[in-house]
Every structure is written in structure tokens, then in C-alpha cells.
């Protein structure tokens, strides 16, 4: 089956989730990937949304983090203060799945403002939401966003959520309990932090994508891993499940990824 680069990105993100994991899910691309994983190889994946729904099992892609279907299918629903204080903050959650408008070479995330200064930005984005504490507290973090030189920058204009801060030792100095970004999954490939320098390096490309293409889509001088791999294309089963999931969301008048497109769209 033929597929789009967005489908490849979602499938690649979904594959990183293992059965039985707990996943704190951001809205948009992350939610699509997490739901795909639950519908394919990880039926026991525990989805946790910041609206307080723990163990949600939506049949259709939720349009927001507060859809009724999340509450109705959850193992339990708790208050918003509780989801952050009792569930996210203590480091109980295996993986945080986040979108972003900008990410930098140290995996720091900006979802607040682009250009100008904070008081008068060129583009105002929605802001922090649950992301800063998800990035701080989950055992590991996966970031999902489309790649462009304006979204992949040397240093984000505003650190909404901390990845590796200024580099090695930053998270420890800040007392952040989780291990930080484990990978960034884009529409071109996969970047992972070098364990020594904390800098994101290219470790995987999608079939047909070249390294120069990825470097062109990156606003810093991107390093390439010696073990660079080509990510296997989506299987027919993965694609079918993804398209079914999206189709089930079609009774929603707008597509379920509208939120994230809008979020990153501002700077494309």
C-alpha cells in the first residue's frame, strides 16, 4: 500500500510504544500514534490524558483531550489537580508523548511564542498546557512533529518544556526526575539524543528520504549517527488500522489532526 509521510510518522511513533506501558498523551499527532499502538501491537497500552482520564479506550480518535469517549471508556477519571499531582508528578508514567511547534538541538520544546519578544511575539502559540510537567516527570519522552528549518532550531525562542536544557547535566541540576526526550519522530525520520552530548542526532530515515533532505529540514548542523538505519515502511496492517482509526474519527466534522496542524501550522 502507498502511504503519506504523515502516516509513516504516526506509524513510527506508534511502534515505540510497548504493550503494558503507561503513556501520558498529548493531543494531535501524539494521540493518533498512541491510539494506533493500542489498536495494533499494544492492546494493553494505558492511555492517560491530562483531562484526568486514566486507561481510556476510545474506539474513535478523540478530537480533544476532554472528549466524552475518554471518560466513558476510562478505568477511572480523576480531577485535573489529581492527574498532575498524584499521577504525573511522582514519575509513575512510563512515557510522555508530546507534540511541539519548535524543538531545538537539545530537545527543548517551544509551544508558547515565536519571534519578537514574549510580550510582543511575532506568532503567539497556545502555550504550555500539560507539556512542561509531562516533559519533566515521565520516565521518557517522545516528541512528534513535522520537520522544517523553522521547527527544528538551534535554540528555541522560548523554553516551554525542558528537554536536555543546555546539555549534559542540565536535567540533574534542575531536579527533573524523568530521563527526558528519548526520540523525536518527524515526517522524515527519527532523531535521538547522543547519550554523551545530549544533542539530537539523526538515527533513522524513512524509505526514500535522503540525509541531505533531513539536514535541509533542520535549522542546525545536524549530525548523523554512524548506525543510521532506514525505518521499515508501514505494514499493510498498520496502515489499515491507522486509516480505520481516522475514518472512525470522521463523524467529527474536522479531522482529528487539525489541532496539531493548527499548532505547528502557524510557523510553516
Amino acid at each position, binding site marked *: 500500500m502507498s502511504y503519506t509521510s504523515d502516516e509513516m510518522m504516526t506509524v513510527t511513533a506508534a511502534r515505540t510504544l510497548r504493550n503494558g506501558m503507561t503513556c501520558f498523551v498529548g493531543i494531535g499527532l501524539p494521540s493518533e500514534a498512541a491510539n494506533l499502538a493500542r489498536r495494533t501491537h499494544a492492546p494493553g497500552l494505558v492511555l492517560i490524558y491530562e483531562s484526568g482520564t486514566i486507561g481510556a479506550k476510545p474506539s474513535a480518535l478523540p478530537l480533544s483531550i476532554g472528549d466524552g469517549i475518554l471518560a466513558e471508556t476510562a478505568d477511572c477519571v480523576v480531577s485535573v489537580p489529581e492527574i498532575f499531582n498524584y499521577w504525573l508528578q511522582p514519575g509513575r508514567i512510563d512515557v510522555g508523548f508530546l507534540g511541539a511547534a519548535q524543538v531545538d538541538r537539545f530537545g527543548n520544546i517551544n509551544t508558547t511564542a515565536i519571534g519578537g519578544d514574549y510580550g510582543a511575539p511575532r506568532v503567539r502559540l497556545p502555550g*504550555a498546557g500539560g507539556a512542561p510537567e509531562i516533559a519533566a516527570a515521565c520516565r521518557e519522552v517522545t516528541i512528534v512533529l513535522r520537520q522544517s528549518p523553522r521547527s527544528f532550531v538551534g535554540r528555541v525562542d522560548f523554553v516551554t518544556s525542558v528537554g536536555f536544557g543546555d546539555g549534559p547535566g542540565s536535567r540533574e541540576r534542575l531536579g527533573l526526575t524523568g530521563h527526558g526526550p528519548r526520540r523525536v519522530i518527524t515526517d522524515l525520520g527519527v532523531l535521538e539524543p547522543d547519550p554523551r552530548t545530549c544533542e539530537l542526532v539523526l538515527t533513522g530515515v524513512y524509505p526514500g528520504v535522503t540525509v541531505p533532505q533531513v539536514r535541509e529540514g533542520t535549522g542546525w548542523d545536524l549530525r548523523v549517527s554512524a548506525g543510521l538505519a532506514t525505518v521499515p515502511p508501514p505494514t499493510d496492517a498498520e496502515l489499515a488500522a491507522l486509516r480505520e482509526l481516522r475514518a472512525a474519527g470522521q463523524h467529527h466534522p474536522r479531522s482529528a489532526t487539525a489541532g496539531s496542524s493548527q499548532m505547528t501550522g502557524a510557523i510553516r
Partner: protein
Amino acid sequence: MAEIVSLAEAVAAAIGDGDTVAMEGFTHLIPHAAGHEVIRQGLRDLTLVRMTPDIIYDQLIGAGCARKLVFSWAGNPGVGSLHRFRDAVEHGWPVPLEIEEHSHAGMANRYAAGAAGLPFAVMRGYRGTSLASQTAGVAEVTCPFTGEVLTAVSALRPDVAVIHAQRADRAGNVQFWGITGVQKEAVLASARSVVTVEEIVDELDPRPNAVVLPSWVVGWVALAPGGAHPSYALGYSARDNDF
């Protein structure tokens, strides 16, 4: 004890120009009808507090009711941007809007501290972010037992909380269920409160996951069926994503 009145009476009784008003509801149970009544009554200079100031606050901002916005995520989840908010912040149009910006966890803890009668809450958060330096109400606090440095956020104590609930009984006890968000904390943290409801019933039969706010912590209750539209009220109405 709560008084059951019309929505117009509730808004007139509870909210005045210059007040700090928290309209809460996390995607679910957003008090849109009450927001429209605030616009209708022409209230001005409000400090609007809300974790996710989606369409409801965009309308209030566009109508010129707001002086300041306290929030943690300004977008309309899944369905679009907040044009009035972006115009106000990017271009100071129609009027400049002062903003005080937090994370969700920070806002939730600020409400919880307010509900608990404390001047601040302790949490892990903000450290290393640019937000910490741009936002009032964030400071460091040291654990007196371990010496660990944590984050303190100042309590939110709005003048008025406005929420939408599924039901109240005739005594003004309020019940809501599904995603219950931060509404209990918002009401308990605020000096006054307005609750719009889908239905007023003789008796609140117990419901799974229901939050009940007893009448004596509620100010005014007003019947407003469909009052969450285009948001939804689980068991009563569906989300209108076309809006």
C-alpha cells in the same frame, strides 16, 4: 445556601466590573451560556482566569470585557485557533490584553491552594522553563526536611467562579460527572460562584464519578439547558465541533 435564580440575575448578582472571574470546565461542561450573559450585560475590565481559554474567552476578549487573561493553554482543542486572543497579544487589538501564563499543573495547583485556604502550593515544575521568569506567582521553596528546592505557585482566589453542571436539586446542591476538571477547586477557591445547570431535579440520585457541591458552598444556581454549547454536557448534549 445557594439561591436558584435566572441566569441574568445570577450574573448581575455575582459579577461586577473589574472582578477576577474564573469560568472553568475542561473541554467538557464549559459555561458558554454564562459567558454570553456576561457579554450581554456589558461587564468590563475583567481579569479572566481559565486553564484553557478556548472559544468562550475568545468571545469575551473580542467583546472587550477583559483586561487581563490568566491561563495555561490558549487554543480551541482540536478545532482551531483563538483569533481574538492572538490579535490581542500579537497586535494589541482591539485593546492590549495583559497576560499571566502558567502550565496546567501550575494552574491546577494554584486553584487547589485557593480551595485549601493556603497562600501557595508546592509542586515540581517550571524549573528550567522560560515561563518561570515571565510569570508572577512562581517562586522557589526549600523543603525544611530534605533541603530539596521545589516550586511554589501562588494561590488563585478569584472573586467569582462560573461553572456549568449537569444537575442541581431544588436546595441548590450541584452535581456533575464525566470529566470533572478543576471545577470543584475553582468554586471552593472563589469568594462567590455561579452554577448553570442542564436540569433542576427533585433529588440527586448518586452517579459514578459525580462531584457534588453542597448548596452551602454555592452562590447562585441558574437553569441553562444546553448552556455548555458548543462544548458538551455528558449525558445531555454533544460537542458541536462545527461551531
